[in-house]
């Protein structure tokens, strides 16, 4: 019950959740790590799904390596989630430092980890969209290796994939909201500075995600 309450607080009342929770230089990393690992597992599942689909496109010579390639994608997605956690925390920490932020990096890491929780739900939803899309679509192999890249780009730029990206971005924004409140507590900065600290990377992320669709 307590966990459920905590989850509800993180999602709906982040200010109240972080208030008094980020104590000391070394707050507990267990729960944030668990959230990020769940996010990593979900990302890995989604990556496995996409990898299986893209391997169908590969020429027959490469298609035999489907297991290996899918394994690499799964591991990369899982480790990528952990790396993403650390990197985004570093970015927040760096920007907040420029805005006069104080406090240990682990405090930022904890905040960033908690803030990843909406992205877990985002991953579930976008992963479901991708799974349903790939289940209903037929993908043909491409014998010319030169065309594989274009074919994968085409696969990723279809409307359903774009919807999945939008859903992910919406939940990233939700996470960003949590990060804003968390960074105020973790780095002892104002709401405006926390908004700038979080806003800049999130906007860049949004642009990176959607520029290919726009361009």
């Amino acid at each position: 019950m307590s966990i459920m309450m905590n989850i509800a607080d993180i999602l709906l009342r982040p200010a109240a959740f972080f208030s008094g929770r980020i104590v000391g230089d070394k707050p507990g990393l267990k729960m944030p790590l668990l959230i990020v690992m769940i996010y990593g597992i979900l990302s890995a599942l989604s990556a496995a799904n996409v990898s299986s689909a893209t391997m169908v496109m590969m020429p027959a010579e490469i298609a035999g390596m489907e297991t290996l390639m899918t394994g690499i994608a799964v591991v990369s997605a899982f480790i990528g989630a952990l790396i993403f956690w650390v990197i985004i925390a570093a970015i927040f920490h760096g920007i907040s430092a420029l805005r006069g932020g104080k406090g240990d990096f682990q405090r930022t890491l904890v905040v960033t980890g908690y803030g990843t929780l909406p992205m877990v739900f985002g991953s579930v939803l976008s992963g479901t969209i991708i799974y349903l899309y790939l289940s209903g679509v037929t993908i043909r192999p491409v014998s010319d290796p030169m065309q594989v890249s274009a074919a994968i780009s085409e696969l990723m730029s279809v409307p359903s994939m774009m919807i999945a990206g939008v859903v992910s971005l919406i939940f990233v924004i939700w996470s960003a909201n949590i990060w804003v409140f968390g960074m105020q507590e973790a780095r002892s900065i104002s709401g405006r500075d926390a908004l700038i600290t979080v806003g800049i990377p999130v906007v860049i992320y949004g642009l990176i995600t959607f520029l290919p669709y726009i361009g």
Partner: protein
Amino acid sequence: MKYRYILYVCCILLGLCIVPAMAADSSTTVEGQLGVTDVTIDPGVFMYGDSGMVKVTVTNTGTTSVAIARAKLYPSELDVMGDENYGSVGSIGPGNSLQFTFTIVADAADGIYYPLFYLDLRDASSLRYRVPVKVENTGLSVSVTDRPDAFTSGKKEDVTIMVGNPWENTVNGVVITPMLNGFETTETSHFIGTLIPDQAADATFSVTPYTENAMEFTIHYRNGMNDHEVSTSVPVTFGIDRKQAETVLNNIVVTPEGDHYIVTGDVTNAGLEDAKSVQVTTGSPAVPVDPYRSYVVGALEPDDFASFEVTFSAEQGIENVQLITNYKDKDGNLYSSQLTLPLDSAAVTDKKSPVAGDDLPFVWIVVVIICAAVVAGVIYNSWKKK
């Protein structure tokens, strides 16, 4: 005096006896001078209705001329013409020969006839000689020595006709002519020429039947100066040639790629004859596309096989396409076989994209809107509570 009369009477009686005897000796001597030294019959054997010549050579082997009144050939159930030319022959000198030629027409049944050559001499004697003439209606022997097991309409096949001469005499001008009743031949006729007794000759015709009418071949030949003909027929029944090449497709794999399909497989010649110019392509509703609109395998010997690869495109929703195999036989006759190829085992394709079937469900838009609303509400609420 009385004895003298008796002596005269005896002498007269003796003389009366001697004169006929002397006359008889004189006649025998003239006939003995003449003899039939040669008889030529052309043709050697007559067929019913044949005309021919009988040449009789008479030689005077004596030392005095012999006067001949007339010469005649008396028919023996045969018609003889030309003997009126010898109504007044004249004489034949010592050591000379005379040839008498008669025309006979063999309008009689098979058998040997003996027309009588009769030479009437002016001294009331004559020369007789019977000339044997054979009449036999047995014609040339004709047989079909080679033909296909079954004909196919429009397919060129070889038919071999053998002509044999079972006669005693030589026939010449032997020509085999196809009658072209429902079939075509490369050769308009085949000239064999002379056939000596007990000789046979073959003639092979490349025939292309179009109907199931029996093929008629007529053999024209001459017996002496007489034209004859004999016919033979080759029954035509359309069917499947048991030896013909037969292409079998197997190991077929249909692989969609880009905007088209690739079909690979093996084509095997399961027949007993060579398959020439083997080609594999696709038929409607498939549309052959580059790079392998049609794959030319080439010649396939019996039990030989080769791989092929063809490419085609097909509209979405098409379930089957035709895989067509064409080949020719050694005469250039074209054969074709089709194999229905299901596409359900292969991924359905569209013409543009390697990713097919992406329709944006309306529900996703609704989900996005709901998510956006929820997140906006949460964010608003979290800031409001603060």
